[in-house]
Structures are given as C-alpha cells and as structure tokens.
C-alpha cells in the first residue's frame, strides 16, 4: 500500500464517484462526506509516511503507458506537492461537508469526487503528459459545476473558463512536445519524464521560447494579469463549493507548475524574465487590489483578492532563492485555506439572503456576532497579520524577493497596504454601522454544519501561523534541492549570480553566525 498510496489517492475518489451513482440521493451527501473523510485520512497517511528529511521524490510509481514514445505513468511527491495534495483532500472534504446546493446534489458530489481525482493527479504527476492529462481533465468537472449550478451568467462564465484555459494549455502542450524532442535529440530516446527533463541543459534562446510556451499555459491558470478576466466571472457565477475549490486548489496548479516546470527546466530563462514577470506580479498585486476595492459584490472582492495574492506567490516563486520559494509554496497552502474559508463565509450569507451585494448588508456584527468574528479572523489572515498562516508565506516571499530587487519588493510590499484597504472597507460595509435592512434584522447566526467547516479552517489558520515548522521544513528541503539544481544547471553567469547555491550559503551563514557568538 505504501508504494501505491499515490495511485490510491488519485483513483479512490474516482471509483467512489462511479459507485456514487448507485447511492440513493437522500443519503448521497453522507456518502460524499464519508469518501472525503477517507481520502483525507489517506492523505494524512501519506504525510505520515513522508520522510521530511529527504529532498527528492518519494512514493515513486512507474507504469509504461506509451514507452516507445517515452510516455510513462510516473507519480511521486516531494515536500512541495505533498501539502498541496493534503490541502486538496482537506478542502474537498470540507467542501462536501458544507454543501448546501439541493438540486441534483448527486451529480454535484460525483463531479466533486472526479474533480478531486484530477487535482491529486496534477500534483503527483511526474510525467509531462500525465500531468497534462490531469491538468486538462480538471477543467471538465469545474465546467460542469459552474455551468450547471451557477448564477445567471453561468454558461458564459463556464465556457470562458474552459476555452481560455484550454487554449493556453494547448500551447503548453506544444512546448512539452518540443521539450521531449530536444531530449530525444540529446539522448536519442523519447521521454516526457519531468525528472529526465531536469537533466536537460538547453541553450538560452531555446529556454526562452519554451519558457514562454509553458508560461502561457500557467499564466492563464494562475491567473496572471492580463489573462485574469475569466476568474471574476467564474467566481461570480460559480456556486460556493465551486469557488472554494477553484480558489483553494485549481489556481495553485498554475503556481505549482511554475515551480515544478519553469524554474528547474529553464533556470536561465527564469532569471532573464524575472523582472518582467515580477512587474506583472506587481501589477496583479496593486491593480487587482484596487479593482477589488471598487467591487460592490463581496464575492467579487474575494475573487479579485485571490488574484492579488497570487501576485505575491509569483513574486516569491521568482525570488529564485530558498526563502522565496518556500515562502511562495507556503503561501499557496495559506491562500488555499484562507480564500477557501472566505468563499465559504460568503456562501453562508448568500444562503441566508440570496444576494452578495454589500450594500444589502451592514451592521451584521450585531445580528451574527460569531459569523462576524470568524469573518474577521479570516480577513485578518487575508491581509497577512502575523501569527496567521498568510503572514508566514507573504513575509518569506517578499523577504526572498528582496534579495533580487529592492525597489520591486517595495512596490510588491504595498500588498499589505492595498490589501488592508479593500478588505477593511468590505468588512466595514458588511458588518459595521447599524442594521438598516429589515430582512437583516433577525438573520440566524452560523449554524452547526457551517461551523463544522469553518472551525477547522480557523484552527489551521492560527496553528500554522504560530507553528509553521511541520509544513515549512519539508518544503524547505525540496526548495533547497530545486534551487541547488537551478544553480548547477544554469549556464549564464547572471543566472549563476542570481541563483545562490544553498550549499555555499549555508556554509557562509555558518561562519558568520559563529563569528557572532
């Protein structure tokens, strides 16, 4: 079981989904929760078995798929993918547990289980094509969720989501085919295995082209400015559960892919394009934060806020040093938890009032104190208050990038200001002041089921904010490995200079600290 835990993690939900068709629709929800819990337990088992001391891939599996063309079913996790997998299992469980949609809930739950398969698959795939398969497959369930349970514009939103991402990733596919071809030229045999690709050292101009090809696919997924406009529609129209999973996991695919593909495969290109990408990220941070400030719909605020946070993640990723990369990975987890919770919270109020316009609310803190408290907590986490999960990630990301560029970090740092602005403004509009609307006068506070979903998220938010070590350590190990790899295989001097080898640095810091004591 230990050897195949990943395959089990991937295909168990799918199989369970199949069987789900047989369940009576009255008890399907319980079934969904049960499967979610089992899956989550399995993911915890994965974490438990995971050896935090090892930097490389673990639980590797390999089954030939199209060996003559170098396509194999290869799985494996390292410190970076591990926690995203655990997170996705967790979020899906929470999501199903807090599901409120009633119309054909069976289809919904089955779809969610399939979606989970694709998510775990993406984060554990170590073969380009297998990765691509899950990456594309994840679009379908989300398309259905948005399109079938969404708001009035749902069809427009879902098609836009699908086609936009699809188009981007097809270009990525061409990039992958090129990558495999270059590997073929270099070694005489086809291979789509990512670990093989890591060994391939390409001239800089090729790196640039391939980087751009992959970039298009990833950037649309993240989504990076100016490819971000599908996201507000998707979130605005999607049902709560859809937004939760979209924000918490699906967006992470893009940023994860940057770390898994772009950085180790094209170190020189990454260095060469660091500044433009950082500038895009800064635009994401500031511009989308301002757009979020202008929103009237609270869900849109959260949606745009995710784009803004993704900007910080990108910044951390392209810091190209251990601090930055671990920071960005940690921020992925953090943002997963927090944005997930925020969307759930929005869902709570939407279920009660069937509107998300902030002007409809006001003074909710009087009527729903518990709700206000949890929302406040998540708000503070989202603006990156210390001792909340987000701060660790944001701090490390910015800290890391500061080594690369001071002025850009200063600009990116405005995230903590603009973020506070739109979040506090939204909170004020919704919760402060007097209760003006009659229908808000006696709204019920959060109920048991909602608490069931929200309390664990709150606990994680605080726990990992105070004691991130258990997560941060394995991440750090793998981040060091990646940075070391980049340093070793980079060819231009600038890259060598920009990407400090963790080993040397470790020694230097050793000496300096000894000097201090």
């Amino acid at each position, binding site marked *: 079981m230990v050897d195949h835990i990943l395959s089990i993690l991937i295909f168990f939900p799918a199989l369970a989904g199949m069987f789900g068709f047989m369940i009576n629709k009255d008890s399907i929800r319980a079934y969904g929760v049960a499967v979610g819990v089992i899956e989550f337990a399995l993911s915890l088992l994965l974490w438990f078995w995971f050896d935090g001391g090892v930097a490389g891939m673990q639980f590797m599996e390999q089954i030939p798929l199209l060996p003559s063309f170098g396509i194999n079913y290869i799985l494996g996790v390292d410190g970076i993918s591990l926690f995203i997998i655990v997170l996705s299992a967790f979020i899906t469980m929470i999501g199903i547990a807090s599901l409120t949609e009633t119309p054909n809930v069976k289809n919904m739950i089955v779809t969610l289980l399939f979606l989970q398969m694709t998510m775990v698959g993406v984060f554990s795939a170590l073969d380009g*094509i297998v990765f691509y*398969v899950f990456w594309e497959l994840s679009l*379908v369930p989300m*398309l259905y969720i948005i399109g079938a349970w969404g708001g009035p514009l749902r069809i427009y939103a879902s*098609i836009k989501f699908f086609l936009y991402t699809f188009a981007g990733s*097809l270009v990525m596919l061409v990039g992958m*085919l090129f990558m495999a071809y270059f590997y073929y030229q270099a070694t005489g045999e086809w291979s789509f295995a990512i670990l093989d690709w890591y060994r391939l050292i390409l001239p800089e101009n090729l790196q640039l082209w391939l980087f751009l090809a992959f970039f298009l696919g990833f950037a649309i997924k993240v989504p990076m400015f100016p490819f971000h406009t599908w996201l507000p529609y998707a979130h605005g129209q999607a049902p709560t559960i859809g937004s939760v999973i979209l924000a918490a996991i699906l967006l992470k695919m893009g940023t994860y892919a940057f770390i898994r593909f772009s950085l180790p495969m094209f170190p020189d290109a990454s260095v060469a394009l660091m500044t433009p990408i950082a500038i895009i990220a800064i635009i994401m941070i500031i511009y989308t934060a301002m757009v979020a400030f202008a929103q009237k719909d609270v869900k849109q605020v959260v949606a745009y806020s995710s784009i803004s946070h993704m900007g910080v993640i990108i910044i951390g990723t392209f810091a190209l040093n251990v601090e930055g990369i671990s920071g960005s990975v940690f921020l992925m987890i953090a943002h997963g938890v927090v944005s997930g919770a925020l969307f759930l919270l929005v869902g709570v109020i939407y279920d009660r009032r069937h509107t998300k316009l902030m002007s409809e609310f006001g003074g909710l803190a009087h009527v729903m104190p518990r709700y206000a408290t949890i929302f406040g907590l998540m708000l503070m986490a989202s603006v990156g208050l210390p001792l909340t999960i987000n701060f660790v990630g944001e701090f490390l990301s910015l800290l890391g990038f500061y080594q690369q560029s001071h002025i850009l970090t200063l600009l990116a740092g405005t995230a903590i200001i603009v973020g506070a602005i739109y979040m506090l403004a939204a909170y004020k509009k919704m919760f402060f002041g007097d209760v003006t609307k009659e229908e808000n006068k006696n709204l019920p506070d959060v109920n048991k089921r909602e608490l069931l979903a929200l309390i664990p998220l709150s606990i994680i938010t605080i726990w990992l904010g105070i004691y991130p070590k258990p997560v941060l350590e394995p991440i750090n190990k793998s981040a060091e490995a990646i940075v070391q790899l980049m340093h070793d295989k980079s060819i231009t001097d600038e890259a060598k200079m920009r990407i400090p080898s963790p080993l040397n640095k470790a020694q230097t810091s050793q000496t300096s600290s000894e000097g201090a004591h």
Partner: protein
Amino acid sequence: MLEPINVSMESLNVMTLAPMLIPVIGALFILVVDLFKSNLDKTLYVVLSLLFLLIDFGALVDSSGLFMQNGTLMGMFDVMLIDGLAILSQFIIVGASMLFIPLALTNKRFHEFSYPEFFALFLFMISGFQFMVATDNLILIFVGLETASLALYTLIAMHNRVKSFEAAVKYFTMGALAAGFYSFGAMIFYALTGSVEIGQIATTLAGNGYADLGFVLVAVTFLLASFSFKLSLVPFHTWAPDVYEGSSAAMAGYMSIVPKIAAFVVAMRLFEFLIHSGVVWLEVVLYILVVVTMTAANIWALVQTDVKRMLAYSSVSHAGFVMAAILIGSTQANSALFLYWVLFSFTNLGSFSMLWISRQKKLPDHQSSDHSYDKFAGMIHTAPIAATSMALFMLSLAGLPPFALFWGKMYMISSAVTSGYTVLALIMALNSAIAGYYYLKLIVYMFMKEPVVDNDGTVYASNATLALRFIIGFAAIATIFAFAVLNPTLEFITSFVYNSGY
C-alpha cells in the same frame, strides 16, 4: 503468328486479390439470395455482409502476416501492390465497415435497408476502396475510386428523402467533375512518362531530373484537385456539409471515415515522392490547403445550428488536420496519420451513431432540423447515460486527454514539431482550441440547459436496439481506454509504415 501467352499462376499470386474479391463475392451472393427468395428481412443481409466482412478481415490478417514475413509484394502483373499502407488502410476500411453495418438494425424501419441491393452495393463499395488503396496503378486507382463512389452516391440516394436526393445529385455531379480532373492529371503524367504506375513515374521523373517541371505541376494540380475533393479540403469541400446533412447519420459517419482514409493513402503514394524530391510548390500549396481547411472549417462549424452539420464541418477540419501528415511526410507523420484515423474512426462513428439512434421519423415543430442543438437541451436530466457518452465523444473530438483522439492529435503535432514545422504545430494546437467551442456548445446544451417541454428522454434512444447500443458502448469504451492499447497499435502501425518505405 503470335505465340500463345502463358502466365504461370504463382507469378500472379492471386492471394493478393483475395481481400478485394471477398466483398465482391459477398455482394453477388446477396443478390443471388434475393433472386431465389425476395423480401427477406434486413437482419439476414446485415449478418451476411457482416460475415463476409469478417472473412475479409481474416484475409487481411493473413496478408499482413505475409507482409511481415517478406515485405511488400506485387501481384496480378504487378498491378496489385500489397504494402504496409495498403494493409493498414484496409484494416481501417473493413473494421469501420463492420462497425457501420450493424447500424442498419434500427427498430424504426428505414427505406434503404429494405433493399438487399443496399447491402450488395455496400460490399461493392468496400471492394472498390480496397482496390483503390492496394495498387499504385493510376488506372486501377481510378477504377476503384469510381466503383466506390458510384456505389456511394446510390447508397446516399437510397435514404429516400428530398434532401438525400439533393445530396446525391450534388455529390455525384462534383464527383464527375473530380473524375474528369483525375483522368486529365493522369493523362498528363502518362504523356510525360509513358507510364501510369506511380513508382515508374517517380523513377522516370527523377531520371530526367524533372526536366519540364511546369507540366508535372499541372498534372499534380489536377490530381490534387480531385483528391482534395475526396478529402474535402477547402475550397473543394462544399459538398461535405450538404451530403452529410442529406444522408442518414450513420452513412454520414461512415463517409467521414472510410472514403477519406482510402483517399489519404493514394494521396500519400502520389504526393510524398514529389515532396521528398523537393517540389517546393507542392509543399507551399499543401501548407496553404492544410491551414485553410483546418481553420475555415472550424470557423464555419462554430456557426452551425444543426449538430450533424456541425460534425460535418468538424470532419472537414479533422481531414485538414490529418492532411498535414502528408505535407510533413516523415515516417512519424505517416504513422500518426493512421493512428489518428484509427482513433478518429470509432470516436466519430460513435458520435454519429448517437445522432442516428436519436433520429426521429418526423420533426416536432419546435425543431428546425433533424439534430438541432436545442433537441439535446437538458439531456442529462432525461437520458443521463446517453448524454454522458455523447459528451465523451465530443470531448474526445475536441482532443481532451486522456480520450482517444487526444493521443492522435498529440502524436501528429509532435511529428510536426519533430520535422521543424513549429508554426504549423502552433496553428494545429490553436485550431483544437477553436474547435473546443462548438463541441462544448453541445455539452452545454446537454448538461446546462433545461429540457424543451414535452421532451422525455425517449427521443434520444428512439432508434436504439441492442446492436446499436453495443456499437456505441464499444465506441465509448474504446474512446476512454484507448491509451491502454496505444503502445502496441502505434508500434504495429509504425513498423508497417516504415517497412513500406514511407
């Protein structure tokens, strides 16, 4: 006095003829049966033709064994040419036909199937295609082509609706023109080289170093025109949508596969030697044809309101996509062509069969055409399984992994990449994205809209019988689990293509 010509039987090796003769015999047999006892039930004829096709298939397996032993073999005064391409394409032809013929077993009665001639003609057509692919003699190609086409026109017409006659007439007339083009092109080649065997033509031309290239190009132009018609490349595609719409869904699905693979093989034989001997003109022209066909057909498919017509345009676009293989001309590309077509055949047959089983005898008034989009609205609520499998075929056609067609697309694009056609590869990729829209449109209708009133799901399976369900189920499963048998298939194809020197 002339001496009597004596030809040793083994020098003929008649075996090469076997696969083509079997359907002919079958056809005659059916006619004979009908002579003795008329108005027998269609099921009999269906099973009979299925049997003969099975035998045919066996013969193919046999000759493929021969090929693996001692490579390409000629026969019948070197008119027959049994090489890898011939065998592979025949496999596809016969296989697809075997999938098609049971579609006649609808539970509604349709005009054409009540005639035994239908099945006879069908078998004649198959042998025609087989001849077409199993020779490099322009005469025999012509004969095969015309046998098949004439049979096909009739089959279409036998559907016996106003639209199908119109379709038949259009197809026929344009076909006649195409035949004219073909023979003219062949004539010029003959005039240039004094031979009608592609192999010799190639050698002769190479011998005199393409002395009068201008005439060669004119000849190629005419041949290209006639095959572009068969392959429905823009602007020679105009028949496709109308004929597909006019003929029955099953026949349309069949037409989108079998005639084209035959044409592809001939095109491969005709054009690739020219491309390899560096006729830049052809490269340019093919490039343009490929790109225009892919893109334009996609764009027209976007705006269709009838699913069948949409699928027609999409098949045109797929043809363009595959034509790229002939432009690229590498072994990988040619293998990709066959792989793609194998995968395409059951995906497409599957989707057309879905339309076929949902075919109504007469249209309700809210419905503009046989298979208008809104007919499928809310299908997931009324007929979930049907909707799911239809969606499956759509996703596969859109090239979404891991469904069948994705692997074909991937391998094809990869072959473009490998041969340095980067831009072409990108165009192909982006076209798949555009295509995504109209396949998605159907899914949107099926999964995200509310059913039209007075539509309980029965209509979607009104024609369904066990046989049809089986066919569709087979197609669906093949579509999902294609990746499992991908490796052996690809190796088989590659070895055949490689060993026949393409």
